[in-house]
């Protein structure tokens, strides 16, 4: 089934923000907005659900902390105890201050790296992936709003969008599976 979308291009993030609010007020469906840089507050204006990335970061941090404790306990206490600085390592808890930097570093390491990887997976990004930007200018100085036009009158929508400050409007027929 072919669906019809309208690409409206803007040249200013403030104008774009106002446009997004107006389009949502008219109950048109915004498929996606492509911007050259993160626009503060755009996610809220578009009505996107808040990110759950922070929760995953907390869980990854807990995993990192556990890995650090298990690893240091095995290496320094169980497998090969050594007497460093007059502190025989026969007890994890008594030597704990020495392990705190490692516990901290691995917590941060796991949280940071796994969170980035999660973010890539969630955004469907991987090496050599073809860019999805419908217009290369959105990587430079233009903002593109993709609005669903399948069940609406295209002419009314076009004039409505140009009133919101769009500098260019294109109607696109796209196949459902073309990306």
């Amino acid at each position: 089934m072919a669906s019809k979308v309208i690409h409206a291009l803007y040249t200013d993030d403030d104008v774009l923000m106002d446009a997004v609010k107006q389009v949502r007020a008219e109950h048109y469906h915004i498929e996606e907005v492509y911007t050259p840089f993160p626009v503060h507050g755009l996610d809220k204006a578009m009505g996107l659900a808040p990110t759950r990335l922070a929760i995953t970061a907390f869980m990854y941090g807990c995993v990192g902390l556990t890995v650090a404790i298990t690893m240091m306990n095995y290496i320094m206490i169980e497998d090969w105890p050594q007497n460093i600085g007059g502190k025989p390592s026969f007890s994890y808890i008594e030597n704990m201050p020495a392990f705190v930097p490692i516990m901290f570093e691995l917590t941060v390491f796991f949280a940071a790296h796994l969170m980035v990887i999660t973010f890539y997976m969630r955004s469907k990004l991987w090496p050599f992936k073809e860019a999805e930007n419908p217009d290369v200018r959105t990587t430079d100085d233009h903002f593109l709003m993709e609005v669903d036009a399948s069940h609406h009158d295209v002419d009314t929508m076009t004039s409505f969008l140009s009133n919101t400050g769009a500098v260019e409007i294109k109607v696109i027929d796209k196949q459902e599976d073309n990306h």
Partner: protein
Amino acid sequence: MYTLSSKLRLFSIILVIIGALGLTYGFLSAPKTIEDVKEMAAHDAHGGGHGDAKATSGDHANESHVKEEAHGGDSHYEHTLHQLQNKPWAALYVAAFFFFMIALGVLAFYAIQFASQAGWSPVLFRVMEAITAYLVPGGIILFVILALSGFHVNHLFVWADETKVVGDKLLEGKASWLNGGWFIFRAAFFLGGWMLYRHFAVKYSRKQDEDTTGNKWYKKSFKIAAGFLVFFIYTESMASWDWIMSFDPHWFSTLFGWYVFASLFVSGITTIALITIYLKSKGYMDFVNDSHIHDLAKFMFGVSIFWTYLWFSQFMLIWYSNIPEEVTYFITRIEDYKLPFFGMVVMNFVFPLLVLMNSDYKRINWFVVMAGIIILCGHYVDIFNMVMPATVGESWFIGVTEISAVLLFLGLFLFIVFKALTKAPLLAKGNPYIEESKHFHY
């Protein structure tokens, strides 16, 4: 304009009176002679609950009795006598310093807002200015206590006692720095510099409200803020050596200034948040929104972590290297102050970490208030841990004297801060960033 309600005025006056009475009791009930100490010890041995002098735990009591027998004779009693005579002075000192450092922390935070030209915070400027009003009376009181201690009216500083300095190589070596006259001159210089900045910063801020043409006064505020911050970071560091680290004059830590800074900074920011939330709940600061509280809570969270980082850096290196003259500092604290020493890490690190980590919780006012109260108590205990081991040793206790001293200064602090709030409109309307600040959202 804010008006000081008669309820709050009465409340703070009552706090001052109760605190003064309790502290007087503390001074009067301190033992005068070795015989008094012996009598108190005998009371304790018979299980009599003698408020202040009572040991904190069963273990502790036993331990001190064992030591007593080992020592034999009067030398132990004399030692305890000096500790108990120091106790009300030390309690007074900790409380005076704690409330003074809140005002100082706020002053540094205020100067940073100007130097960084922050756009989110100008709606909070009048609260900050009011809190720094305590700098002057609080600083004068602290100065008097420092002068009394530096000239050996009490026995808080061991280096002030000439009989102790003679024959002690380290203390003799440090005597050119640590002596009454030079010590009190430095204190006057530090306090004078901070008060001077406070005076002009507030003056320029008020002038900017009246005359905004060309932001002339704002630019002056920016310049003195930048100058003050340079002055502050040197003098604050030196003041923390003088006023706190010199309680243990045989010991030193190179990051001590930063450590005290972290403590005073987080206490100051927490106080800004608490007073702002209080004023908002009374309907005075409608222009402060959730995002401002959120940002203050972020600072409370972040600086708490920073404090822990410094606390741990100081602890771990000394613990690991285990050099006798260094590690004795922590051995005293872990053996005699186990509960406050580790309790403060829970209050200042674990608690804010868990409570303030979630973004949404930073916007819930009662959550921020609860976390703030715990943080403030935790940093009182932090100062307590810095001062008490060298002044009262194992005779410490948080009892009538200590709590009274806190109440006395809390009452004074509340009275002066809220009185200062009535002096100017609560919105610094002339500030060039005031509109940005009003519309600040996260």
